[in-house]
């Protein structure tokens, strides 16, 4: 019975568990943070970020192809597709608002960081929504880490980002979000492989 529950879990979350898909844009976030941090003065050559963006799209396409050709395709239920669309639209709008709020003055905490943390948490809740199994706990752990880091200025640690070599909190949060995305992506991929092994072994 448990094996069939695992099959249902796998089928429902097949695309979410294909974690390598997150690598290109998480790496882009990390490299963008590194690039912004390395810039001095007003004149900035945008050539490198544009190349990184193009490479991210190409890499995403190739990873997508790898998953489709190696693991097959599953159509998500309509309700899940709506939730994904809604999360993307609302999440994008809130992230933009948080970015504007963060950059329009000195703030007591990083709103972008809080939105990033909530995005990761929402991704995890979507996975465990129907079948409350304790998997991929790295999601809530990293969400908590990002949330705590974002709120550090409230506890008097205004310049926490200098300790890790960044010039601003926003760029540091972007870099940390990139690292979190890479970790989550790799862990999710291994979770997918492990679950596939388990369901096949039991049959």
């Amino acid at each position, binding site marked *: *019975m448990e*094996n*069939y529950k695992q*099959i*249902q879990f*796998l*089928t*429902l979350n*097949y695309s979410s568990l294909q974690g390598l898909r997150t690598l290109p844009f998480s790496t882009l976030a990390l490299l963008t943070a590194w690039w912004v941090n390395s810039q001095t003065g007003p004149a900035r050559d945008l050539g490198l970020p544009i190349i990184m963006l193009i490479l991210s799209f190409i890499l995403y396409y190739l990873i997508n*192809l790898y998953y*489709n*050709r*190696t*693991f*097959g*395709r*599953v*159509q*998500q*239920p*309509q309700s899940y597709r709506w939730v994904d669309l809604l999360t993307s639209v609302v999440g994008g709008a809130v992230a933009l608002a948080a970015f504007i709020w963060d950059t329009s003055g000195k703030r007591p905490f990083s709103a972008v960081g809080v939105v990033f943390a909530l995005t990761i948490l929402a991704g995890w809740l979507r996975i465990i929504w129907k079948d409350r199994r304790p998997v991929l706990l790295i999601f809530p752990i990293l969400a908590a880490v990002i949330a705590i880091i974002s709120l550090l200025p409230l506890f008097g640690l205004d310049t926490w980002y200098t300790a890790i070599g960044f010039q601003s909190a926003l760029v540091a949060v972007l870099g940390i979000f990139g690292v979190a995305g890479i970790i989550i992506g790799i862990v999710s991929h291994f979770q997918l492989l492990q679950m*596939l092994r388990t*369901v*096949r072994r039991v*049959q």
Partner: protein
Amino acid sequence: MSTPFEEMAGLDRLIHEPARMAILTALSTAPRADFLFLQRITGLTPGNLSRHVSKLEEGGLVQTAKGYVDKRPNTMIELTPAGKQAIEAYWKQIASLPERIREWDRNEK
């Protein structure tokens, strides 16, 4: 009234087979999935999976649609309305068995 053991013996043989159960369970969760996905979750060889899918198709529980994705042949498989009903009825029957066995045990004593 039948005993739980007679009920077990009467389970739909077309469904009551591990590989076909796995296929039907996956297809009852998602609207449709392709052949490769079913191969990954069942661990069956393409030939074996094809035989199981054909049996389910002959039984009217699934339907297949052959096409091309990225210039490669691709077979999408989905449950038919009869397949949905059959798998739901099967799960209900399976879920009720432990209680039926306890009931039978009490009556026997």
